[in-house]
């Protein structure tokens, strides 16, 4: 009997990764955007706490293993969005809503920019959910407010980065650039990796990356604006940005 089950699993691998009403697994298929069909891969699984988690691959759109945001699974209904990627200022995030059909297909729609495309996905393999990048705590020397200045297009830009550690959790940062106007940049990731500190806004393609120089007490690095990099030296200024 045991042997029979193993043989069945080998012959019908779908049975091994949760066919039926559970959406767990890897789902693949086309998104029918007119004139530009996009192949999508969605991985859905439960994490150690039993909560649903997932990631997405969008072929041809530069997305590999992006975490699913606002993921909701109710019976056979699945809904999620892809966060800030492809977010339209007026229409919000790229969002998916689908349900599992009796035929084992994940059918539904993808919405982006107010447009709607049909979605028809088949389960192809066990889930391979990609872990989302996570912030880390930063060294005690770094948990402070830092200020500096760089030049772009003939104008000075004042930068303030305030780093804060939280007990038992990752650090957070506030990242403000003041040029002609004040830009309070949402920070997604704060990481200290070896000597390097990186404060990053994924949606805005803006980051500070630098090294702490103990002798001078400065954070020396670059501000990456996506379209240009500029050298930036940050000095401790204490307090919090206004």
């Amino acid at each position, binding site marked *: 009997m045991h042997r029979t089950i193993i043989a069945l699993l080998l012959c019908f691998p779908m049975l091994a990764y949760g066919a039926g009403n559970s959406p767990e697994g890897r789902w693949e298929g086309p998104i029918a955007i*007119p004139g530009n069909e996009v192949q999508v891969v969605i991985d859905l699984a439960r994490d150690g706490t039993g909560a649903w988690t997932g990631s997405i691959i969008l072929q041809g759109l530069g997305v590999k293993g992006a975490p699913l945001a606002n993921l909701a699974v109710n019976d056979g209904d699945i809904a999620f969005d892809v966060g800030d990627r*492809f*977010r339209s200022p007026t229409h919000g995030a*790229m969002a998916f809503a689908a349900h599992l059909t009796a035929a084992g297909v994940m059918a539904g729609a993808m919405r*982006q*920019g107010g*447009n709607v495309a049909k979605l028809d996905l088949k389960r192809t393999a066990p889930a391979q959910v990609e872990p989302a990048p996570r912030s880390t705590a930063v060294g005690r020397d770094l948990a402070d407010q830092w200020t500096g200045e760089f030049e772009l*297009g003939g104008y000075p830009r004042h930068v303030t980065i305030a780093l804060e550690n939280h007990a038992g959790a990752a650090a957070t940062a506030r990242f403000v650039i003041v040029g002609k106007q004040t830009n309070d940049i949402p920070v997604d990731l704060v990481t200290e990796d070896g000597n390097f500190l990186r404060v990053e806004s994924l949606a805005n393609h803006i980051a500070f990356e630098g090294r702490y120089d103990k002798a001078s007490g400065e954070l020396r690095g670059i501000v990456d604006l996506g379209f240009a990099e500029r050298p930036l030296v940050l000095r401790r200024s204490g307090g919090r940005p206004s």
Partner: protein
Amino acid sequence: MKRTCGVLALAAVFATGAADAQSTFRGDAAHAGAYPGEGPRQFHRVKWKFPTGHRIVSSPVYANGAIYFGGDDGNVYAVDAADGHQLWKRSTGGPVAATPTVADGAVYVGSYDGKFYALDARTGALRWKIATGGERRFEAKGLHGMQPKNQTIADPFDVYLSSPVLGGGSVYFGSGDGNVYAVDATTGEVKWKFATGDVVHASPAYADGAVFVGSWDSYFYAIDAASGKEKWRFHGGEDPVIHNQVGFQSSPAVVNGVVYTGCRDSNLYAIDAVTGKERWRYNNNGSWVIGSPAVIQGKVIFGTSDSSLYLVVDAVTGKEIVRQQGKAYVFGSPSVAGKTVFVGVLNGTLEARDLDTGNLLWEYYTEASKRNDGWVLTADRQFNGPLLFWSSWREVPIVATDRQFGVGSIFSSPLIVDGVVYFGSTDGNLYALE
């Protein structure tokens, strides 16, 4: 017999009344952008459309019953204004992204093949052609933040070629070789060349014995039309990092002794035509002013790129009179007929607006924009930037730009003749609306 009928039909087309004010880019040599008669205050129908198979950036002009324009398929076209049937086409060796000028039975226009042509307006036969130093697009390393930063990238937004203007028996035009040319209109002999520091794809205006044109070298020039000597130069903005906020792509209008020109440094400038001194500037906070402003009744009318604004400012003071929020980039030049302003938008919309209020009277969507392949547009017809420009690396922004222009973008400056609006679209059609 069939041949005779064809000849008679051609004769009938070319025998109708000439309208000099519609036979050159922006209507006249000063580029005021004002056309005689009234334009349609309401949209009734597509009178005809003429498919070319490739995008049209050129603006149509009118002479003697025929519409002339260039196609990116490399042809110069003459089309019957009445019914849209082709009268002739003449091939060149590259996209004809310039607007022809028609005068004295000749059609003058440049091509991306680096040649400048004079064709017979009735038949399309070649009268003469000359070679410039060759065409090229504006290019720079790190252009618009595109990567790799150390690679020179040709600007996908440098879509136009310089449209010629006639004055004093000469035809004047700019070139990708950085020169402004003055050529004898009859013989094709080059009278003079004026060297600038970069690509000249703006179209010169001619007024009071001078030629006015800007270059991508960040300078705007006034050149003596007879001698080719510089009268003055005006310095626009610079952008040494990503070369985004630099260069005169806009073609000037010269009205009442003032030069009005847009600039990629996001300003619209009013410059004294005699002295070259700035009178005022209207800043658009980073948005380019690519089109040629229309100047009429003391008002300057223009559109912006990223901020997608339709603006009317006072011609003397530069103070804002009208501001209307549009949906997408405006590269095309507004054209005025009576109390109506017509302007093409890159999302494939032709807008008709009231001259006084700027209010939208009607709009027409090109066929490609209604298809919206690849979701280039959002549901409310804005450009879907987040989906298209998902990376600054390699070809992604270039492909994205090309896709943007696939929705029937209207780069063309509308032409209004006898209540009909003509314009080209990147969906390959020349449209006639009434």
